[in-house]
């Protein structure tokens, strides 16, 4: 019987030939993050299993807005030195972990990574099994291994041709609106089909990033020349693309024809509340804040499309637009390409690369009754600040167009 991508990768890391859904395995893990170093120290362990394979960056309260946060990151730096962690990225050389770790070669096809932060499913864009370990990331730090229940696999076939001005974000909002936000619960989701091939790495990345928003353990794409192009110069170890066998067994297979897709927004409350933007247009939803940032949609091409829409135009007088590139590397590229200049001229506030506004931490928390259109990943009540605020999720193009209009609009009106 054939195997899915996740079954192959988990079996290889457990030292067995085949893995079956429902099986519990102890697997060797290829890399993890350093979030749990303090827990390792508290357990009395004086070394990590492999300092080369631990990556860390401070991104949520970065740089620290309070003395408590400053002392926390100060202690992190002490632990980084104590445990001789090589891949640590200081402010000005870092950004949001999922982007920074990838830029620095943490993920390669066929690998298994368990690290902190729920959006770790993002790493599946590299044809690797990347998922969240939270408390038990300390187990990886100590032993280089972790238990997994082999997940059932589901396959999402993306057919057709993606219309101009629709991107990965519109695809995942569409898929989640039809299948619900639990179709991937405990599962490995493989995205395949013509649209999967057509999409850029950045677009696929958004879909994998929001893997956790549909409950997935892994959200995977196959590897191709676009994967290799991103990894070139970043990953120097050998790797091989992993594909599912022709007779691999999927619990469910879903098919979407995306040729008629139009830009999507998710109404407040749940990422599965997606509807076409044009259906919301008549409601004239006023926007107080437009946020272009987060690990979901703040890559170079996201900033490029926003700059193209805002070029020569102004952010609406009643709107503040916050822009936070996904990493310092992306910040530099966008700076040199002139995108940030365009955004600044349009009246946007360009922040450093941070998780801050997305999780309601700092640098753009919402007040009572405010409305935000956001390129991020979650619109749960209270997510970005006040429980009385509304968060709508959309693509970078829709965020940029809405920033100009002062209300939620279809980006095609502005292109």
């Amino acid at each position: 019987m054939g195997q899915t991508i996740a079954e192959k990768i988990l079996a290889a890391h457990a030292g067995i030939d085949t893995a079956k859904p429902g099986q519990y395995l102890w697997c060797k893990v290829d890399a993890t993050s350093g979030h749990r170093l303090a827990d390792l120290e508290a357990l009395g362990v004086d070394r990590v299993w492999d300092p080369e394979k631990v990556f860390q960056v401070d991104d949520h309260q970065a740089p620290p807005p309070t003395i408590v946060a400053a002392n926390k990151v100060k202690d992190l730096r002490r632990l980084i030195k104590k445990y001789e962690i090589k891949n640590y990225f200081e402010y000005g050389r870092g950004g949001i972990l999922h982007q920074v770790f990838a830029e620095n070669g943490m993920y390669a096809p066929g690998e298994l990574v368990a690290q902190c932060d729920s959006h770790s499913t993002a790493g599946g864009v590299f044809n690797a099994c990347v998922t969240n370990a939270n408390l038990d990331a300390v187990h990886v730090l100590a032993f280089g291994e972790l238990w997994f229940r082999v997940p059932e696999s589901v396959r999402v076939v993306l057919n057709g041709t993606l219309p101009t001005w629709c991107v990965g974000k519109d695809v995942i909002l569409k898929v989640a609106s039809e299948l619900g936000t639990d179709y991937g619960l405990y599962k490995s989701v493989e995205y395949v089909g013509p649209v999967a091939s057509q999409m850029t790495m950045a677009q696929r990345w958004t879909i994998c990033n929001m893997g956790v928003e549909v409950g997935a353990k892994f959200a995977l794409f196959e590897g191709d020349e676009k994967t290799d192009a991103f990894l070139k110069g970043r990953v120097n170890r050998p790797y091989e693309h992993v594909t599912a066998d022709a007779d691999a067994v999927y619990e469910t297979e879903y098919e979407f024809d995306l040729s008629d897709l139009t830009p999507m927004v998710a109404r407040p409350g749940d990422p599965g509340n997606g509807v076409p933007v044009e259906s919301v247009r008549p409601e004239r939803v006023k926007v107080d804040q437009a946020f272009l940032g987060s690990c979901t949609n703040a890559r170079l091409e996201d900033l490029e499309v926003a700059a193209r829409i805002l070029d020569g135009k102004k952010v609406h007088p009643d709107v503040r637009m916050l822009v936070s590139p996904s990493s310092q590397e992306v910040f530099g590229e966008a700076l040199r390409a002139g995108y940030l200049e365009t955004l600044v001229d349009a009246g946007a506030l360009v922040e450093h690369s941070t998780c801050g506004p997305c999780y309601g931490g700092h640098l753009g928390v919402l007040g009572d009754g405010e409305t935000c259109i956001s390129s991020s990943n979650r619109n749960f009540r209270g997510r970005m600040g006040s429980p009385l605020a509304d968060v709508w999720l959309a693509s970078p193009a829709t965020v940029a167009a809405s920033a100009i209009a002062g209300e939620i609009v279809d980006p095609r009106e502005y292109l």
Partner: protein
Amino acid sequence: MAMETVRVGRVWKFGDHISTDFMMPGHRVLANPDLSVEDAAKFCMEANRPGWAESEVQPGDILVAGINFGCGSSRNASQSLKALNIAVVLAESVSRIHLRNAVNSGLPTLVAPGISGFVEEGQSLEVDIVTGTVKNLDTDATLQAEAWEEGTPPYEILMAGGLEPFMKAKLKERGLISG
């Protein structure tokens, strides 16, 4: 095996997709890392059920929820539920990350298909966390929840009382710590 495996408590019911943002609001907890575990727990369900954590829930109560309980962020919301002395969590389905956090925190959290229609808020349940048998003490009806199979890693970790005691034993066994 000092863990109390049969637990009786009064039920609070919640709906589908109860996120960890509801249980541990980011602007309250993540933005204030010096907040004690007990103080953080006071904000549990603040956005969706104001006042519940501060004045309604009692030690030993049982939380019943719908599908996809604990969706969203990987923050360890079980820590807040434990601080409120919730005895057991039963849900139609539980997010993967939250389920692992619950096991690692030593908070029995069982997937119990059918639980939403099985019990009303305020009724009492008796839950055997090893066998997964759930009894409604008000109606005498029983329901089978999915228990962890004996010998599986999550079973071993939960029965050890959580990840910390589990790891201490393993570290000693491998000679990585002394004592």
